[in-house]
């Protein structure tokens, strides 16, 4: 690590100036454009969360009115789900790494990739416009008939923004699928692919199959609101429950768009920091596909109290339990990988451990919600809020940060301050649990979600949660600060600072524009730690 040198030519110094960025077709630069975008919207969404937790510090609605509160949780959800969680890992880490990991020069369609970023930003602009011109109060789910006839807030521009951003998601998924099929280097067979690639492949399938259904659903809502067309309006015989079916047909698989790429990151981190091949590679790979397929068959577990038949509820309950199987396969295989591994506790591994624990809690509480009887008891309480934050924040964001730290030396060519990074990981872990664990208890005790006031006996747990949120907020600002700092002042990173295997570590840090000086040829298996042919490359 002492001999690290900056390569003479790399993607960051291949062209300067704003135009070389805004018109780039290099997947690595586009990944950084996305990084700027999703980080910005993450902090916007986070600001809404801060206001929500401030309001809930006291039982009476004293900070904001009930109507403003409705807008706060809606805009928090819309920003975080559509403009951070769904694009974050695929568009930043996936964009940067997929071509490099499979030994390609770029994604299959570089111009389309750049167009995806512009589409994402255009959609974000519309939704931001909705936020500054009166906000949105429908909840991120846009349930009809409230969204079509009752709400007086800016439903149309917000919906249009989500509709547009959906095409960014579709085109990114399309690009990944074609790239993984067509652009693999010689010798890079399907079962030599890093598990990061498998999980992004599964994610892309969901993006391509699910997102268009959300697009058409949003379009129908807009047509109903604008032109008084009747699709979900009971006044003409339409059924609001149909909206929920169509909405969740996308929006439940969307949860797997958020978590599958995270699982791919964790597979990479666990292998690299335990110096072992991922235990049961084919099972972990196929578990990704199984989650993608099963994810399309469970949507109505969001609707157990929406008036669906008992028979339908039973079927969807059983199918929902099935998703636990491939999810558990992954968790058990990661722990089996760690078993007797040479585990080193560097920052990315801390995030990976955090992910495994928090995802397990989020997943197990998901089983509570798959059981119809228990779900009816906790529907629309803080139990469900805690559950999905354990998956989305404890799962996806932990993995995103872990991945960002792991590949930061590759992306930037610089090392961050390891001590500060470990400290931040700990702050985030503590802040997260303090924020969301009390919400499980609150929900179980019966505190409903989406109210700005609550009975005084819930205050202690709510104060704990709000205190945790402030710690969590600091925890998120720290990496932002020291990663930016490292860009200029960090020590230079060697090509392979972790001693990990994978094609991304066989090229320079940062990589050249076409990723490799010589087109690579793969002669080794995935995660083949310890084998002579791989150790030679390390």
């Amino acid at each position, binding site marked *: 690590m002492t001999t690290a040198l900056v390569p003479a030519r790399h993607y960051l110094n291949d062209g300067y100036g704003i135009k070389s960025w805004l018109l780039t077709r290099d997947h690595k630069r586009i990944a950084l454009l996305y990084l700027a975008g999703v980080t910005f919207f993450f902090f916007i969404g986070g600001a809404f969360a801060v206001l929500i937790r401030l309001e809930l510090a006291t039982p009476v609605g004293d900070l904001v009115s009930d109507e403003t509160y409705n807008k706060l949780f809606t805009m928090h959800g819309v920003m975080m789900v559509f403009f951070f969680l769904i694009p974050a890992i695929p568009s930043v880490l996936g964009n940067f790494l997929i071509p490099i990991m499979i030994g*390609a*020069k*770029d994604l*299959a*369609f*570089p111009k389309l990739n750049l167009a995806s970023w512009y589409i994402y930003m255009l959609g974000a602009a519309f939704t931001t416009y909705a936020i500054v011109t009166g906000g949105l109060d429908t909840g991120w789910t846009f349930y009809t008939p409230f969204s079509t006839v009752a709400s007086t807030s800016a439903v149309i521009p917000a919906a249009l923004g989500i509709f547009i951003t959906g095409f960014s998601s*579709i085109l990114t998924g*399309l*690009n990944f*699928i*074609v790239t993984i*099929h*067509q*652009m693999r280097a010689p010798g890079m067979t399907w079962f030599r692919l890093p598990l990061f690639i498998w999980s992004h492949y599964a994610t892309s399938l969901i993006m*391509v*199959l*699910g*997102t*268009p*259904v959300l*697009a*058409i*659903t949003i*379009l*129908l809502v807009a*047509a*109903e609101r604008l*032109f*008084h*067309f*009747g*699709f979900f309006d009971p*006044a*003409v*015989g*339409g*059924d609001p429950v*149909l909206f929920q079916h*169509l909405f969740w*047909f996308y929006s439940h698989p969307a949860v797997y768009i958020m978590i599958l790429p995270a699982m791919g990151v964790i597979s990479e981190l666990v292998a690299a920091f335990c110096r072992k091949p991922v235990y049961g590679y084919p099972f972990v790979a196929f578990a990704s596909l199984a989650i993608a397929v099963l994810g399309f068959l469970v949507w109505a577990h969001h609707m157990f109290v929406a008036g669906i038949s008992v028979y339908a509820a039973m079927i969807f309950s059983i199918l929902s339990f099935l998703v636990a199987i491939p999810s558990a396969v992954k968790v058990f295989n990661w722990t089996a990988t760690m078993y007797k591994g040479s585990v080193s506790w560097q920052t990315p591994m801390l995030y990976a451990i955090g992910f495994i624990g928090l995802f397990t809690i989020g997943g197990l509480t998901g089983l509570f919600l798959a059981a119809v009887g228990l779900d009816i008891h906790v529907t629309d309480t803080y139990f469900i809020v805690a559950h999905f934050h354990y998956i989305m924040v404890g799962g996806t964001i932990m993995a995103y940060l872990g991945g960002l730290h792991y590949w930061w030396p590759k992306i930037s060519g610089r090392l961050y301050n390891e001590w500060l990074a470990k400290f931040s990981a700990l702050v985030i872990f503590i802040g997260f649990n303090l924020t969301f664990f009390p919400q499980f208890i609150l929900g179980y005790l019966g505190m409903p979600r989406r109210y700005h006031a609550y009975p005084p006996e819930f205050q202690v747990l709510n104060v704990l949660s709000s205190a945790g949120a402030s710690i969590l907020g600091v925890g998120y600002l720290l990496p932002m600060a020291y990663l930016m700092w490292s860009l200029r002042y960090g020590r230079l990173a060697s090509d392979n600072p972790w001693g990990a295997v994978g094609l991304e570590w066989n090229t320079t840090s940062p990589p050249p524009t*076409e990723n490799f000086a010589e087109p690579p040829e793969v002669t080794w298996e995935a995660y083949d730690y310890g084998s002579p042919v791989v150790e030679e490359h390390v």
Partner: protein
Amino acid sequence: MSDVHAHPALAHHFDSLEEQKEAATLGMWVFLVTEVLFFGGLFATYAIYRTWYPDAFAAASHELDVTLGTINTAVLITSSLTMALAVHAAQLGQRAKIMVFLALTMALGGVFLGIKSVEYYHKFAEHLIPGPGFQFEKEHIRHAQIFFSLYFVMTGLHALHMIIGFGIMLVMLWWTWRGTITAEYYSPIEISGLYWHFVDIVWIFLFPLLYLIGRHAH
């Protein structure tokens, strides 16, 4: 980059034109899968309401002009033929023929949209636009609005896809005219053809669902 004889249409990140063509074709197929799901949401909605309100749907479907619909179906199928001939000409590198067949495809598409606008105008004049001004026999006035909402959104989105197709054809005409399309590099025409055929097939489903099913009941 060492290959000084690389084809001008070969992008830097592909090894061969063959690989580039395979990627483009797979990309279009994946996109069409997305489109199937996009229209699939509409077809699912249609199926549910048709099952719930068969009488209203039959009565409402009776208001559509089967003659114009049938003519349009024939026009569109013919445009698929001319598109297929354009692809064939492209494979042989026959520049003039490609341009003639692309122009014919656009012309037939234009006839389709013209007839469609006449139909839309009739519906407008007959107060069959859903909403407060909707007029229909009293028995079905509520549920018939769902039918016409579906009619306008489904045929409207189909027409929008055709207009996008026009844009694609114009680019293809331009590329053919300036000589980009050759017998070695014709995949842009081929995948545009895939798109156009898909738009056709959507209509092949829309026509019976909206115009034909249940007519005999009236």
